[in-house]
């Protein structure tokens, strides 16, 4: 962090920052921001960096021009420097679903990959979204005129724009009367049209999956702390068919193995508790289940319990996320070979850990069952 901070010698007003998730509107705003700074200052150095080391590398070549930083997945060091240096920053806040759909349209990702990608960006930007030095800009649903947006950006960055500069800035958009931002974005930004139309092409299951995850991550796009994050079973992956999602039941018959894994979604750093909710049936020969929370190659917490014969249950274990960059995985593992039984992962609910000690396996509303153990790795 010291190196990065030292690499920003100029301070205000030499540095400006635009950031936002990968989305059509955020891309448009950043392009407009460059045009705005050029209209005001003439030459502008654009630095795109999500990692502190990339930022330091690019700033070594700095000129006397104002610098415009742009990022969409900032690492904790960049986020801290931007906030602590008080760099005038515009954070484009976008609906989670739009981020996912744009990722699918622009980079050909499937829905699951796009959701993972979007959670990374949303959680990374959430670090700075709550800071008072950041100007959060929400465009969706506002139907702004282009001049309004330019003035809003100038106000956010603390710069004055002359009438001549404003005219020069909006001149390229002249053929799009009456300069509504949404319309310009749709026409000017690659893949925007396709991403806005993509929602109707999703299946009803995909739409539901996206809506469920969006409802968990949306507060973070708005700078709010999430009260709970729900990962539906369908976002996790089936241990028996690695490329299939964990929707429906899994026949437990077979050797000891991973029943479900994933979802490889991102969480803000902090203490959390994961509630794995599942339905089991036909488990008459008494199998045992293990729940494992991992991030990368690191096991964050492990819990195990006897698996009841039939019913809906939840298994809860606390864990700590040290940094948001590594996606989190929750595995359900069949501890022994099984000759019967069906397992259905309903959802994984992640909540900020309140520190209360709870038994790991609970039938909702009916307390816990015997034979359970949990362990949590120390940071």
């Amino acid at each position: 962090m010291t190196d990065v901070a030292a690499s920003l010698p100029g301070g205000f007003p030499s540095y400006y920052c635009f950031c936002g998730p990968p989305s059509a509107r955020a891309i448009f705003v950043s392009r407009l921001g460059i045009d705005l700074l050029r209209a005001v200052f003439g030459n502008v150095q654009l630095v795109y960096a999500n990692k502190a080391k990339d930022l330091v590398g690019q700033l070594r070549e700095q000129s006397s021009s104002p610098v415009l930083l742009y990022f969409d997945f900032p690492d904790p060091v960049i986020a801290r420097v931007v906030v602590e240096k008080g760099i005038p920053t515009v954070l484009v806040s976008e609906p989670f679903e739009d981020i996912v759909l744009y990722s699918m349209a622009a980079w050909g990702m499937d829905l699951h990959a796009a959701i993972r990608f979007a959670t990374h960006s949303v959680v990374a930007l959430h670090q700075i979204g709550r800071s008072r030095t950041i100007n959060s800009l929400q465009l969706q649903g506002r139907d702004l005129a282009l001049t309004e947006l330019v003035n809003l950006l100038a106000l956010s960055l603390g710069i004055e724009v002359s009438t001549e500069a404003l005219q020069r800035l909006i001149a390229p958009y002249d053929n799009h009367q009456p300069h509504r931002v949404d319309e310009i974005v749709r026409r000017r930004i690659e893949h925007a049209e396709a991403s806005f139309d993509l929602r109707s092409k999703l299946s009803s299951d995909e739409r539901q999956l996206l809506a469920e995850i969006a409802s968990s991550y949306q507060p973070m796009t708005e700078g709010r702390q999430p009260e709970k994050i729900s990962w539906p079973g369908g976002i996790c992956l089936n241990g028996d068919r690695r490329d299939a999602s964990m929707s429906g039941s899994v026949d437990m018959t077979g050797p000891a193995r991973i029943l479900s894994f994933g979802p490889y979604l991102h969480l803000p750093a902090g203490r959390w508790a994961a509630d794995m909710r599942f339905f089991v049936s036909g488990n008459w020969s008494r199998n045992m289940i293990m729940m494992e929370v991992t991030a990368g190659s690191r096991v964050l917490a492990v819990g195990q319990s006897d698996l009841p014969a039939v019913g809906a249950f939840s298994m809860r274990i606390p864990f700590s996320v040290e940094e948001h960059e590594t996606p989190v995985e929750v595995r359900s593992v069949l501890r022994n070979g099984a000759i019967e039984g069906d397992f259905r992962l309903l959802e994984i609910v992640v909540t900020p850990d309140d520190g209360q000690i709870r038994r790991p396996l609970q039938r909702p509303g009916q307390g816990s069952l015997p034979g359970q153990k949990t362990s949590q790795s120390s940071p």
Partner: protein
Amino acid sequence: MTLVQSVPDLVPSRSIALRNIVKVYHTPIGPKTVLDDVSFQVMPGEKLAVLGQNGAGKSTLVKIIGGVEQPTSGTVDIGMSMSWPLGFSGGVSANMTGFDNIRFIARIYDKPIRDLIDQVDDFAELGKDLYLPVRLYSSGMRARLLFALTLAIDFDCFLIDEVLAVGDQRFQRKCHEALFVERKHCAMILVSHSVPAIREYCDRALVLKNGRGKVFEDLDFAISIYASL
């Protein structure tokens, strides 16, 4: 003339079929269910492995198949001649000589006594020890007598409970030859912890877990389950 097509029975009479077997023992701490709704069928010539951890119910199942124990509920249909459990020492009287035990078995199974004595003597290689009471036999000698007696009766199906390691290596080879080569046309129910033996001799497997049982046609899959029970 009228042609009448014969309709085969759903369960062929020449088979061993266990249906919905439940075995509950009453213990000082309450009833203990050792087998819980176990069903399977063995057809002539089929070789079924029975796999499971200790306490899974294998020995109880063997006793029920062998008629030594009765199930609490369920039915056992023995549609072919069935050996006693190979390695089961309850079939001979310890106070009788080996010779008298052979005569006793010959009468039960309606076999010529002299032929049976010759066959057992030839296979077990006990010599004059046949005239000693069985209680004086070493465990190896007793196993050889029982193995020889089992082979001497012309069973359709052999029930083998982990006795593939009887006696010294030479005798083991002899048992292997007699059981799995000369009688390869016979059905077998083989209870064993030996995965190589199961792989070599069986084509299906019944996996028992905590009293429950399931038959797997895919032997490798069954073994993979058994390996992680």
